[in-house]
């Protein structure tokens, strides 16, 4: 699997040359090149892929995760990258042991679009992205208690009874978190939740950056 084949993206070999042992494995599947990276070096790898002129992966297509059917397989976090100029794709994966902490560094500093993509992975799989400016749920409501829905051990209909789910859903305040920019006006200040008022008082005026 480690010998370069004709279908393999040249980025794979370039990565091996640059990072050596951090590149655990390279795979080719249906014409796509998949590079497995160790968790410690993943941020360096992604930064290298973005900034090196020969690689130039300036477009982060997606950040997602996979929880396989076989419980012993680790959870994989997937970054789908694209170089717009070179019209080349690359898939980078990190395997996370389900017994250990599901922690991965954020790539928000490299691609701003990763903000919501990583929030979705957090919401659905419980993977925490260290250094993310706004790590909270995005698809489910922020105070969702039942867990992480797309994991394989999460039952299809959720853990709670339908009555309990309805009750919790009806009790949610849909406006609990608007961006600070929108709410920094004096009018809305009185209605803000306590933690937002704290952030405003400390001088934060906008969202991230």
């Amino acid at each position, binding site marked *: 699997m480690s010998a370069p084949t004709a279908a393999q993206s040249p980025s794979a070999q370039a990565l091996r040359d640059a990072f050596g042992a951090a590149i655990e494995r390279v795979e080719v599947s249906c014409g796509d090149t998949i590079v497995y990276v160790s968790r410690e070096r993943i941020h360096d790898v992604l930064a290298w892929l973005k900034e090196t002129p020969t690689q130039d992966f300036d477009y982060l297509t997606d950040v997602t995760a996979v929880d396989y059917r076989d419980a012993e397989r680790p959870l994989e976090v997937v970054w789908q990258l694209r170089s717009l100029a070179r019209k080349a794709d690359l898939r980078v994966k990190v395997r996370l042991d389900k017994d250990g902490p599901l922690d991965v560094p954020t790539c928000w500093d490299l691609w701003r679009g990763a903000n919501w993509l990583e929030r979705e992975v957090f919401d659905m799989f419980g993977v925490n992205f260290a250094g993310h400016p706004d790590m909270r749920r995005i698809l489910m409501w922020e105070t969702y208690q*039942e867990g992480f*829905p797309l994991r394989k051990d999460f039952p299809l209909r959720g853990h709670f009874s339908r009555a309990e789910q309805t009750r919790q859903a*009806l009790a949610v305040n849909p406006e609990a978190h608007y961006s600070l920019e929108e709410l920094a006006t004096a009018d809305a200040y009185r209605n803000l939740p306590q933690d937002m008022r704290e952030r405003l008082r400390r001088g934060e005026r906008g969202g991230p950056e």
Partner: protein
Amino acid sequence: MGLIATPPDATVVSSTSPNWVTTRLDFLANWARTSSLWPMPFGTACCAIEFMASAGSRFDLSRFGMERMSFSPRQADVLICAGRLPFKLAPVIRRIWDQMPQPKWAISMGACASSGGIFDNYSMVQGIDTIIPVDVYVPGCPPRPEGLMYGILLLMKKIRGETFTDDRLRVEKLVGPDGLYLPPERVDELSEPFGNSVSQTRSS
């Protein structure tokens, strides 16, 4: 009371006895209400497209006086929930329903609004009747415009049967202190899986 014989075990619902005056007034009020039911289109998904098609020229809701969509609940008579409702949207529809003035009715359009449809999962409300009181359910995925219009005609028939002497109508059924508007067993009963969903109990 004179000409109408009431069976001995019947529940008397009206505070005043029905007579010629009240029935004529009912006829007038109900005629006025059914002839221009202004819908509040709560369209979330595919059924909204069919609703829009019903409002178009081929199927034409205008013949029922319903072409004036009211996107503010303040001026709406009937809430038409067209599409699936995620739990995240549940407080929104509840609030909009509460903000509609009486008399108000609700049409649950499509399978998802009626029962959760194909989405029997962690994120979808299994029928909006667990959240708001529904008068007419229109099945279909999505229902054809003719189906929706049949549902509207059923609602009009229901309205024509109403009387202002009935105290049980026009009651605001609010969300109770426990956070639900129905008892929890009833919510669970309404959300029960049925059909092929019954077999889908695995998590993957």
